[in-house]
């Protein structure tokens, strides 16, 4: 049955955007936890650990997220795990986020001047203490703008979860298109909602960048 694209349909799309946001937030949190671990593996003075981290990052950054999504959607069931689209999406996007955040955070950790390491060593702090009390607090400040910038990428990439059937904003748009058959209106509305989310984040990233440059 065909009908016009109306106000209720726009509301339906807005409600579907909740799932886009939720998927982004959960993936960023889980991915962030893994990324912290990988970023530290990447800089500790122990070569095999560095290599392991580099291999992981290259594997994830060198393959399409769509492929990763499919590997988890079809792959986890092999191990007897019954995965629904939500689980597969969260797993894939967390791992995707972990590789990119790890690289961003490694850059931030390494951009803390070497003298900070040396000074804290001279003060008698152990490696973990140096990292915990001296390096990480400074690196966090440097890392905020690019991290927020990456979140924009993540929000946009969650649109791919539609391909495995998870009903987020893009999938909701497809469903809507099937009932109203007004692709231009539907997808422009979808794009506008993404734009509002992503543009706010982009602006926040620019603002952070300006603030921290002034502070330095």
């Amino acid at each position, binding site marked *: 049955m065909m009908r016009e694209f109306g106000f209720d349909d726009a509301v339906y799309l807005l409600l579907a955007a909740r799932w886009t946001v939720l998927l982004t937030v959960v993936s960023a949190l889980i991915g962030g936890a893994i990324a912290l671990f990988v970023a530290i593996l990447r800089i500790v003075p122990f070569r095999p650990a560095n290599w392991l981290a580099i291999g992981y990052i290259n594997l994830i950054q060198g393959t399409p997220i769509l492929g990763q999504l499919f590997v988890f959607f079809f*792959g986890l069931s092999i191990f007897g795990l019954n995965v629904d689209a939500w689980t597969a999406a969260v797993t894939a996007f967390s791992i995707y986020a972990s590789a990119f955040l790890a690289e961003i955070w490694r850059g931030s950790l390494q951009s803390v001047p070497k003298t900070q390491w040396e000074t804290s060593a001279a003060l008698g702090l152990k490696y973990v203490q140096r990292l915990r009390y001296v390096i990480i607090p400074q690196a966090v400040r440097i890392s905020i703008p690019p991290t927020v910038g990456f979140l924009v990428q993540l929000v946009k990439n969650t649109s791919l979860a539609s391909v495995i059937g998870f009903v987020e904003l893009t999938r909701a748009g497809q469903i809507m298109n099937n009932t109203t058959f007004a692709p231009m209106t539907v997808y422009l509305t*979808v794009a506008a909602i993404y734009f509002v989310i*992503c543009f706010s984040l982009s602006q926040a990233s620019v603002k952070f960048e300006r603030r921290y440059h002034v502070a330095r």
Partner: protein
Amino acid sequence: MNYNFRFGALAPYWDDIVEGVVLTLQLSAIAILIGLLIGILVAALRTGGPRLLQILAKSYVEAFRNTPLLVQLFIVFFGLSSLGLRFSANEAALLALSLNLGAYSAEIIRAGIESVHKSQREAGFALGLNGFQVFRYVILFQALKAIYPALTSQFILLMLTTSIVSTIGANELFHTASFIDSRTFRSFEVYTAITLIYLVLTLGFRSAFAAFYWIVFVRRPAR
């Protein structure tokens, strides 16, 4: 776990995989070329064009950078065709990919142009070059050298995102994967193998770009 891995099931589809790889490379190469041209044009407009064009250029960049490629693809393929402007899957894919890359590379190139010291521009004008000549002979080469790493990462990212155009039925590598999957039902093997092919392509691209950098910017010093 009692699953038997059978990567051998993919062997009969070798030809299809090669075809998919070729189309992926073709799509990437053409989109990179058009996208780069759009990027240079838009970046030049954003940094030195008339006010109105500056605003237009900025709107284009922000619109494409803040919405997902998948949705852009749907707007081009389904949206425009509902208005009577019909494209084949490959044409729609190329259009969306080029416009998408154009927005990203414009932003990168703009950063490169702004990183060239303003004394260079002034020196160019002092030598009697006009605005276009200053851009073409003084700024562009230096700007491209500064942003080369960022730009090539963006190209590699584009190569990986071509997988998305499989959703509208463009016959590239990832679409080949779904095709083989629907014939063999070896989903995990298919997508793992395809993912690894992308990894090889990425590493190949990366080495090629590094070699190109060395030839253009290192061996022959900046003019």
